[in-house]
């Protein structure tokens, strides 16, 4: 591709043709203020905060959308631009609540930062302000249109990255609102509860539904035995909530903090993952042997489950019926653990700290409960909520000494750690399936083909003389692409792993706001650094295959019998339902 040379703020810069002025300016160290722009999404050009002066042009240009041209002279800041940018943000603020101090995103808000850096010190304009009810219907995501500044990042990520399009713009001009079709409550829409709208929202127009107050209430109740578990990706990213560079695994400190907060027992969701692997690998071996409902498709990711229930109900029989690690651990806490400890089941209050907003939804699914009656996880907090709870308790997180999980649901294998990164579940199942089929331990247990980058990955493995084809997708738009290829017969697989969020759980909708460490939400580099933390965890484990775990063996021996036993089916398996409205994916939507 040809290069173009232009002058930005007096400096010459050469960039490939097609580069925008905004990107070109970054090459010379100028980060033009921006609001609606997001590198992973299509260009909206709605906010005009990024306007620059292009010599010879009658009007200012939106630098996010304007391609750099050869010989162009650009000024990114002039007295006029300074004033215009400030005016734009002042006008946005005019139609925005004045409640920064009580807002969930106080100190973590792009609009707030922008108002500061652009020099808004007074609010000059006082005009009509919109007023709409909040949508509190979803167990996972809250929508507050009054805080929305119509940057449309949520609409774009929902359609372009997740292929869900639960959100759209409705009405026009001042009356424009971002909402599900027909202004339906989230809970009645195709929303899959992934929470990516929260990740990209510059303000607090989307938030997770708060569970911390329920947790605090349970902790204060002397009659309750409150147990907590946390997901692999929580330890890989929790530090970010305290301003620590991404990529530092902080398992021991998280355990210590949870004990300080007052939880009676701290368990590891990775142990749940070990059981998921045992059950799912057994299902895989069984189904592959009988060529029954193949390919087997994973079902750990709760947003993915709601997605397939709306969009591809014809594939529901192919799903693994094994519960997610969270629900398995919750089930064991309320049965095996309760019985061993002699605590009545109804006294156990089970909490999950997850990287995920969809897990809040999963916890409300009666299909995941014991006999459809007993909830296995009573409250799910996101990583962000856990960070808040730790701060609320006045804990100096980084100064804590590492502590270990409680037994018996606290000793996991490395197979559980890697669940958090796309391909990890497939790799873990492969480690165990290999053993189940051949009776041997695979020599190299790190399957590079399944790791690499994210998107869609495919690989074949020879197990016991037979080729098995694995396919892995992360982000639900990729799920569309992969599943359509499978349905059309173009793609033939034996095992499919799908994770609802870009990058897998580490990119979950409940993770610390990327901006708390100066990162960009869902940026590949950020996701890779979090993934690296999971990798460190995996390699630090002495046992790296689920079937080798003495704890897993013990629970099977003492309690469950064997994988896929009647008791396993009762406690560790779930069912799925076809959901309305029918999901529609508009293929080929940008970018």
């Amino acid at each position, binding site marked *: 591709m040809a290069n173009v040379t232009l002058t930005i703020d007096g400096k010459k810069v050469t960039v490939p043709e097609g580069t925008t002025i905004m990107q070109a300016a970054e090459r010379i160290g100028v980060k033009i203020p921006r609001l609606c722009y997001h590198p992973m999404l299509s260009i909206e050009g709605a906010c005009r905060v990024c306007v620059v002066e292009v010599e010879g042009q009658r009007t200012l240009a939106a630098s996010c959308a304007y391609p750099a041209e050869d010989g162009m002279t650009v000024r990114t800041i002039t007295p006029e631009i300074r004033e215009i940018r400030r005016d734009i943000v002042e006008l946005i603020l005019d139609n925005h609540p004045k409640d920064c101090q009580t807002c969930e995103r106080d100190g973590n808000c792009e609009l707030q930062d922008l108002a500061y850096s652009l020099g808004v010190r007074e609010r000059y304009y006082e005009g009509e302000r919109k007023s709409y009810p909040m949508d509190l219907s979803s167990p996972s995501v809250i929508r507050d249109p009054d805080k929305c500044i119509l940057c449309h990042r949520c609409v774009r990520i929902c359609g372009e990255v997740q292929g869900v399009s639960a959100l759209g713009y409705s009405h026009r001009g001042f009356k424009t609102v971002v909402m599900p079709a027909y202004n339906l409550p989230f809970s009645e829409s195709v929303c899959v509860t992934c929470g990516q709208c929260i990740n990209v929202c510059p303000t607090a127009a989307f938030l997770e539904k708060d569970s911390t107050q329920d947790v605090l209430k349970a902790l204060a109740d002397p009659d309750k035995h409150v147990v907590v578990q946390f997901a692999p990706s929580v330890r890989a990213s929790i530090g970010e909530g305290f301003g620590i560079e991404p990529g530092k695994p902080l398992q021991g400190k998280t355990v210590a903090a949870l004990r300080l907060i007052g939880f009676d027992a701290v368990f590891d969701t990775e142990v749940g993952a070990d059981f998921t692997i045992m059950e799912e690998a057994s299902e895989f071996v069984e189904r592959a042997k009988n060529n029954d409902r193949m390919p087997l498709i994973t079902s750990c990711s709760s947003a993915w489950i709601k997605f397939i229930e709306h969009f591809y109900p014809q594939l529901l029989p192919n799903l693994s019926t094994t519960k997610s690690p969270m629900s398995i651990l919750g089930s064991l806490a309320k049965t095996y653990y309760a019985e061993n400890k002699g605590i009545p089941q109804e006294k156990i209050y089970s909490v999950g700290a997850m990287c995920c907003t969809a897990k809040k939804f999963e916890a409300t699914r009666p299909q995941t409960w014991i006999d459809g009656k007993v909830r296995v996880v009573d409250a799910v907090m996101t990583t962000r909520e856990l960070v808040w709870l730790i701060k609320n308790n006045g804990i100096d997180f980084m100064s804590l000494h590492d502590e270990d999980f409680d037994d018996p649901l606290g000793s996991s294998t490395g197979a559980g750690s890697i669940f958090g990164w796309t391909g990890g579940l497939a790799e873990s199942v492969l480690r165990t399936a290999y053993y189940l089929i051949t009776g041997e331990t695979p020599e190299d247990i790190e399957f590079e083909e399944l790791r690499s980058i994210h998107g869609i990955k495919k690989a074949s493995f020879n197990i016991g003389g037979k080729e098995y084809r694995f396919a892995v997708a992360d982000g639900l738009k990729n799920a569309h692409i992969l599943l359509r290829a499978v349905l059309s017969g173009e793609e033939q697989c034996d095992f499919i792993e799908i994770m609802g969020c870009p990058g897998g759980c580490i990119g979950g909708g409940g993770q610390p706001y990327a901006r708390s460490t100066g990162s960009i939400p869902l940026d590949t580099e950020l996701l890779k650094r979090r993934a690296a933390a999971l990798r460190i965890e995996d390699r630090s484990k002495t046992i790296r295959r689920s079937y080798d775990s003495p704890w897993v063996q013990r629970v099977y021996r003492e309690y469950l019998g064997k994988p896929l036993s009647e008791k396993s089916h009762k406690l560790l398996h779930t069912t799925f339902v076809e959901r309305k409205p029918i999901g529609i994916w508009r*293929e080929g939507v940008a970018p």
Partner: protein
Amino acid sequence: MNNNTCSKCEQGLNPEKLAALDKFISEHPDPVDPQGALIAVLHEAQELFGYLSKDVMDYVAEKLQVPTADVYGVATFYSYFTLAPRGKHLVSVCMGTACYVKGAAAILDTIEEQLGIKTGETTEDGLFTIVETRCIGACGLAPVMTINDDFYGRLTVDQVPEILAKYQKEYRSSD
């Protein structure tokens, strides 16, 4: 996938009108973007069904494979589309610049008063719906209004009751 029909919608919607809509869709394929026919299809659907109900929009969404939220966005963006049933007679008052300057607001007030409803509403007998419209290109005759396909120009406030009475009378005589 594109041939999917929504059985739930079909039960509630008039099958002849649906067939006419299907025919329209198959006769107006968008050569560049198969989903680009959305506005034209909604237009036709409104002609056929009188307004765009949720069932109609669901049907169009599935037929064209456009996410429902996008269909709803288009239907609420354009003032031409209506999401609620309209009266037999659509009283449409131009509020474009020329008409406005020439007293369209007073005309609209009189109509509201005469019919006892606000703009955007429908009379209880289902006879009239009042809407505001932007310039219809008859500025030389301002202020103007249309009732269905009938056109009224150089309007004065005192003409309004008489004009409305004509439609009311038609209705009564057809009873």
